[in-house]
């Protein structure tokens, strides 16, 4: 493999690396003159370019290991594209919000770009060492982002909790990986899969490693019982960062989990199906029931995004060889749509916070339909998508995931998930109810900056468009699935 070939296959990563440095450089040159607009522009351009590069790579249907440790395949490229777009949207929307709140705007955007780079590395990692270092890279970047508003008690608390949790979970993950290395003598995922497949006694050895790794990866995806940092951190972190953590970062967690269990532990499927199934049920019930209770919409979204993780995990639980209801395609389209929906929902809070001076209490949404009809409609769309009401993308994802679960005849799991859909509908609709059925307690419309409005409209359009033009997107998803299944599973 020559240098040009490596450059081509790792183009998204190189683009992001250069972008990251460029953002810092630009910001140093123009500090305080434009409130970080130039830096943000450079960052967004870089991210979109990287997204384009991954789509371009994707269309070539690659399936190779680059530089021994990076598996450049359509599976990883799918997640990269989704994450890059998600991060770009977060940056566009946060320009106005961050300008008054921090002096270090260049660093903020650069960190987001580096976080995207971390995701990009980790979703392609096919080696234990790279997985570990990628996850830690993403974590450390996220700690800094969560605590970015220096002097803001909530932001700092969010960061320190995330840090303490992440460092401990990282150590447990590392312990598990070391056992895996001890059992197989290699750090390469595919080789581990082969070795475990051949050895009869490897069954429970692999499980020990898997259980520990589950904690270290599961916390990124905020799966119960490794979720407890999430509500506090999402609540306290600067809202754009919460949007990032609950979507792109979570997607990376799922991508790693999927790759690890499908390439390294395919022979343990009966075991992890049961365990992940139980985790999914716990995650859904805990997230949804707790979200019911919340008065602050930001915290409600934090819990709801835990509940959503439960549905997403169902796709992995029901993963199977069937090309039609494979589970993995459900997981991916669910995540893809979820990124747009949840980024949108969190970012819409920016406008509400701006108006209320920081509060996202449900009372701030009362009568929004009369005060700001466009924002109310967009929020309603996000809520409906999260609730899984057709024809939004949320419905599409749920449909695929449910179909996979039912196809595997996991009737109890399907029924429990269905019960959760009902519970979740209640609190999502509660927001709509307040926007449309209540008299305003606050006077005056809610203003969204131009960047924020652009992002919200893009997200709302995508939420509908993916649902309606499902053909286009699902062809894309199904291809990605066929690749990972051919690779390891």
């Amino acid at each position, binding site marked *: 493999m020559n240098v040009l070939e490596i450059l081509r296959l790792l183009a998204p990563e190189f683009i992001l*690396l250069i972008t*990251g440095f460029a953002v*810092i450089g630009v910001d140093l040159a123009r500090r305080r003159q434009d409130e970080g607009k130039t830096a943000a522009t450079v960052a967004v351009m870089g991210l979109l370019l990287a997204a384009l590069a991954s789509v371009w790579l994707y269309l070539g249907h690659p399936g190779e290991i680059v*530089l*021994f*440790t*990076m598996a450049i395949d359509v599976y990883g490229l799918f997640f990269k594209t989704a994450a890059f777009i998600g991060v770009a949207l977060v940056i566009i929307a946060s320009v106005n919000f961050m300008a008054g709140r921090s002096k*270090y705007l260049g*660093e903020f955007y*650069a*960190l987001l770009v*580096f976080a995207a*780079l*971390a995701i990009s*590395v980790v979703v392609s990692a096919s*080696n234990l*060492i*790279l997985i570990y*270092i*990628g996850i*830690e*890279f993403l974590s*450390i*970047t996220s*700690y*800094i982002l969560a*605590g970015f508003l*220096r*002097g803001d008690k909530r932001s700092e608390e969010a960061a320190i909790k995330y840090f303490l949790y992440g460092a401990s979970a990282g150590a447990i993950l590392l312990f598990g990986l070391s*056992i895996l290395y*001890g*059992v197989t003598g290699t750090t390469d995922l595919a080789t581990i899969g082969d070795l475990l497949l051949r050895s009869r*006694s490897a069954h429970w*050895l692999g499980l*020990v490693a898997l259980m520990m790794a589950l904690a270290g990866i599961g916390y990124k995806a905020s799966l119960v019982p490794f979720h407890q940092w999430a509500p506090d951190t999402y609540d306290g972190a600067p809202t754009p960062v919460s949007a990032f953590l609950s979507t792109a970062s979570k997607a990376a967690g799922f991508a790693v989990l999927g790759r690890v269990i499908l390439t390294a532990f395919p022979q343990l499927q009966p075991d992890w199906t049961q365990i992940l199934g139980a985790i999914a049920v716990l995650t859904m019930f805990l997230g949804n029931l707790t979200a019911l209770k919340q008065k602050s919409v930001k915290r409600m979204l934090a819990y709801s995004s835990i509940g959503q993780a439960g549905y997403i995990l169902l796709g992995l639980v029901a993963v199977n060889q069937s090309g039609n209801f494979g589970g993995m395609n459900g997981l991916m389209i669910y995540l893809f749509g979820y990124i747009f929906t949840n980024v949108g929902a969190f970012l819409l809070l920016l406008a509400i916070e701006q108006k209320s001076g920081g509060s996202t209490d449900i009372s701030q949404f009362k009568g929004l339909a009369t005060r700001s009809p466009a924002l109310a409609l967009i929020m309603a769309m996000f809520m409906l998508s999260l609730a899984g009401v057709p024809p939004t993308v949320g419905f599409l994802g749920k449909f695929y995931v449910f179909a996979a679960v039912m196809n595997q005849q996991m009737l109890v799991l399907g029924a429990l998930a269905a019960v959760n859909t009902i519970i979740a509908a209640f609190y999502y609709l509660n927001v709509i109810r307040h926007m449309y059925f209540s008299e305003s307690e606050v006077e005056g419309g809610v203003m969204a900056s131009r960047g924020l409005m652009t992002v919200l409209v893009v997200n709302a359009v995508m939420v509908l468009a993916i649902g309606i033009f499902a053909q286009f997107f699902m062809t894309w998803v199904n291809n990605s699935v066929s690749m990972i299944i051919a690779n390891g599973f």
Partner: protein
Amino acid sequence: MVGQILFIFIAVVTLLMALGVVVARNLFHAALFLVGVFFGVATLFILLEAEFLAMAQIVIYIGAIATLIVFAIMLSRGMMGKHLGKYNKQWYFAGGAMIFFFGLVSWLLVKMPFAPVSAEAPADAIQQIGSGFVGHYVVPFEVASVLLLVALVGAIMLARERNS
């Protein structure tokens, strides 16, 4: 036989010092114990014929941890009320859970059928590690360097004096 006695000695001393880290009320003492643990681990690395790592452990790690000590002393002055204990409310529960965890995991590890091979450690280990960084593990190596850079930038930004 000598090796075994040596191992037991180092292991026991290291674990005692680790215990010191978690029980010392004075943070400065805890940090000194931590340095001790690092030394102990470094000697174990030597026992395992990983001289490069032992060196790295002493030079880099302890060097970095010296900073930690300074910070710890600087920060801890007066910030923990004297009347407060060093442990939080759940410490006895945590202790019990940790003992159980230790028993379970060590039992698991002992039960695992590892098959040691009796080969010599390669003489050119340092060279091989070096070529590993630019060869097989070049991507993790590059990622690690970016990670350090990001951590540095972030740490400076977070810890910088506020001039409001």
